[in-house]
């Protein structure tokens, strides 16, 4: 354990790290209280004054009054609130500087200007009639670009302008005027244009590519349709990594559908005690695999490996790591207070038949999880005892009041002083107290 824990004071003080701590001697936050007190003492003076904040006038919904977002809601209601809006009539200012005017037409025009620079002047922009009476708009025609070479030049210039709007306009034109093979062949060497094209296709829903196609499953509500859709994705040429994940996703949903149908039926028929005692809160459909495993450890513990819903089968099918499996299983069994199952999770037998407790995760973590699930002290202290680091063991034992562990540890360390200190902390005459007395008197030599 190299990672700094708050209790590893020594590490922090000796290391180069600057911890974000609040020292007791100069605690800035006692000063927070000071300023709070100061604020309160001033209040009496201004109590009768308007208590409204100076910062912003705020409506009941918390929006600042007069702000646009507040007013959207306010004016949308059919009753017009006249008095509420702060009147902020400003004089009109004509001295305000103007922004340089240039409409979107400019973007295309700049493209044409660029052509001017590359000396293809014969493609003069075609001026059409203004479209609306409000604004004179220049519309350029791309039809002048006939040859493939010109079209590609047009595309390259558009890409150079970095204006997605223009690139898209050019792509629309090329798509209309070029055969698919020609277009794709040229796009492959022009990555940016290609990406734009994909984006464009995506937007107009003509065709989807790989992950983008996979993403579509998010929009399918019906689980059977979703499963079938995922199945259809399996044949797509994903990278090996992604292919595994998509396969797992499909397998998972397929299973969830079976488990859900079965459990729903069992639950409503009232056959199984576990569902009566702990009715299901939600369907298992579309839950992550770890959640599904938890569910399986909760409702289907002890089923034979062959069933779809058994923890062992899920573990194997989805290649769940030992740690994850243990944590998930532990969480589920502890929730059910099945301490015997918890015990079995850690017990290993060697060839002589002796049993020993092992865990891929530090026992201090196990203790935390058990404690969160309200494990009784007897169960807790068994695991506290298994913590290897003596200091950590003591601090855990103190945190969870495992007296026996503390007393035994001090006894083994032959630490009289600590035992005497600890005697002062336990209730006089209790069994712990008597135990300490006994040790102290036995060890007097």
């Amino acid at each position, binding site marked *: 354990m190299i990672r700094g824990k708050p209790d590893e004071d020594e590490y922090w003080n000796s290391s180069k790290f600057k911890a974000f701590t609040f020292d007791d001697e100069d605690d800035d936050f006692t000063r927070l209280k000071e300023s709070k007190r100061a604020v309160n003492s001033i209040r009496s003076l201004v109590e009768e004054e308007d208590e409204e904040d100076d*910062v912003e006038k705020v409506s009941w919904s918390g929006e600042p009054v007069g702000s*646009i977002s507040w007013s959207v809601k306010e004016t949308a209601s059919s009753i017009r609130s006249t008095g509420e809006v702060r009147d902020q009539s400003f004089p009109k200012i004509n001295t305000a*500087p103007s922004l340089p005017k240039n409409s979107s037409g400019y973007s295309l025009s700049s493209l044409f200007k660029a052509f001017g620079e590359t000396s293809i002047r014969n493609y003069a922009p075609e001026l059409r009639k203004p479209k609306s009476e409000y604004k004179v708009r220049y519309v350029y025609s791309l039809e002048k670009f006939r040859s493939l070479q010109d079209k590609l030049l047009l595309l390259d210039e558009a890409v150079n302008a970095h204006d997605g709007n223009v690139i898209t306009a050019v792509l629309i034109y090329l798509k209309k005027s070029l055969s698919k093979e020609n277009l794709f062949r040229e796009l492959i060497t022009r990555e940016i244009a290609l990406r734009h094209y994909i984006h464009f296709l995506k937007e107009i829903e003509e065709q989807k590519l790989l992950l983008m196609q996979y993403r579509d499953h998010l929009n399918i509500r019906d689980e059977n349709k979703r499963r079938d859709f995922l199945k259809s994705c399996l044949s797509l040429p994903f990278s090996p990594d992604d292919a595994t994940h*998509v396969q797992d996703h499909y397998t998972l949903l397929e299973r969830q559908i079976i488990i859900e149908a079965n459990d729903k039926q069992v639950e409503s028929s009232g056959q199984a005690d576990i569902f009566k005692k702990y009715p299901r809160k939600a369907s298992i459909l579309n839950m992550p695999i770890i959640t599904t495993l938890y569910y399986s450890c909760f409702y289907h513990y002890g089923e034979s490996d062959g069933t779809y819903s058994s923890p062992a089968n899920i573990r194997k099918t989805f290649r769940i790591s030992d740690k994850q499996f243990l944590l998930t299983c532990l969480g589920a069994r502890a929730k059910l207070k099945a301490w015997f199952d918890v015990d079995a999770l850690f017990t290993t037998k060697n060839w002589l038949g002796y049993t020993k407790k092992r865990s891929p995760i530090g026992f201090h973590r196990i203790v935390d999880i058990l404690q969160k699930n309200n494990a009784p002290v007897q169960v807790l202290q068994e695991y506290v005892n298994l913590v290897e680091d003596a200091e950590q063991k003591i601090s855990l034992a103190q945190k969870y009041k495992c007296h026996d562990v503390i007393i035994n540890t001090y006894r083994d360390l032959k630490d009289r002083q600590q035992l005497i200190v600890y005697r002062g902390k336990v209730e006089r005459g209790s069994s712990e107290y008597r135990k300490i007395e006994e040790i102290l008197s036995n060890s007097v030599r």
Partner: protein
Amino acid sequence: MMHTTASSHLTLPTVRAKMSAHLSYGRVNLNILREAARKELREFLDKCAGSKAIVWDEYLTGPFGLIAQYSLLKEHEVEKMFTLKGGRLPAADVKNIIFFVRPRLELMDIIAENVISEDKMHSPRDFHILFVPRRSMLCEQRLKEQGVLGSLINIDEYILDLIPYDGDLLSMESEGAFRECYLESDQTSLYHTAKGLMTLQALYGTIPQIFGKGECARHVANMMLRMKREFAGSQTQILPVFDSLLLLDRNIDLLTPLATQLTYEGLIDEVYGITNGYVKLPPEKFAAQKKQVEVGKDLPTEPKKMQLNSAEELYAEIRDKNFNAIGAALSKKAKIISAAFEERHNAKTVGEIKQFVSQLPHMQAARSSLANHTSIAELIKDITTSEAFFDNLTVEQEFMTGVDTDKVNTYIEDCIAQKDPLIKILRLVCMQSVCNNGLKQKILDYYKREILQTYGYEHMLTLNNLEKTGLLKPQTSTRNNYPTIRKTLKLWMEDANEQNPNDISYVYSGYAPLSIRLTQVLARPGWRSIEEVLKMLPGPHFEERQQLPAGLHKKRQQGENRTTLVFFLGGVTYAEIAALRFLSQMEDGGTEYIIATTKLINGTSWIKSLMDRPEAP
């Protein structure tokens, strides 16, 4: 202190001054830009003669709030405002319906639905569209396909590229910019950036020097130079306000936004999220202040919304401090305010009392401001003193100093096992990857499997996105160059002083943001001293000069500071801004900074923008 041309605006009525005055007091008067934007808006509204209703793309109301309030719209006969929704438009007895929308296809479909279902016999109303920031061919095509293009009287655009956000800060408020540039290769936002910078130069003069680092920076500079050529002839005769422009790609410094910000403002953003200059806070702490008498009665359940900017004196003072220095700052302020209120006992004569009373509103404002920030500081303290916060920060600092970045981290493992929010996990894993210049394939695969199994396979889309942007990547054969970068640029400072900082590293309690170090080195001694490191970071670095019209060359006074505009393409954090403000205030710094960005971000909002199913945990 140099002032620009628009100081005449200071004669405006007080209410107005209150709303936007904080924009005028900085090194560069950004209120000029705001005024220009307001004028544009008024002109558009007047084009649609008669009464009108605005239908809002909800996303836009926040950014517009930084430009104008409802009152401005009301003056120009805007009688109703609605949120854009499908179906039939609500009844409103107005002549014009104006859609304020971003150029998005899905919004076009909604507009078409609105227009088609309009009862033409009953209430003939004129339809208009105002695209923000630009009209789009694709969108107009869509409207045409839907058969409503002909029903629209007027299609216009409102160029809202750079929005004045604070006295020294401009933002495009474009959430998707990083995703578009680095994931989708859609560089339209760079085009908008260049246009925004052209607008800025039209108002504040040509910027003589342009520096940059990164692919996107290069593109923007190229476009600016090209646009300048095309505009040649329409040169504005304005004395340049900015001496130089520094364009920085976000992807040259992927590390900084991933780290937890430790300034006051940065932490408010990390914990509660600041949107368009506003923060929503849990109301409990604020309720008690208001009416102690009625405890338990009418406790507000709605969050308290507060505007955060330098218009608030106290906030301007404390926003950029390390959070550990906030307690002292607030208590100092409390003493000053208490003393001011005590003055009333000394006021004997009528004149003195009058004097005291005249100061009362200001004192009350200060008191209320102090009360608010004391409450916010308490809320945040609860978080920063928690074990979870401490553990998380410990791991971040280990990664940033290069400890065990090549192993599976047990804390991350534990967090996954406990099903902590996915974004927290992704922030940490990405940070480890960035600090190790990529993860060993085995380790990367392990993290990926754990994440997919615990949070759902659909997140492979998100992981894929993170890999494409380089936030998460397998280690290639090249060696890890992060330690070299860290040492050369002094990214980790052993003894960061949180109370009285002497270096920018105070904003992350030890870590000096890479982006700001580059900015600092550029000012002095210059990038030539760090060529090696610059080569390790992605994209080209460059310098360009723009010719100034004759007679506009600035003659710098002795000791006068340079003004540099730093533009972060793809987002900037509040802590980075704090670090730049710190540099501006350094006595012998020699440079003052104005900051511009596509969007204000933090690790969470940033990762979220790259996720493919952001509503997941």
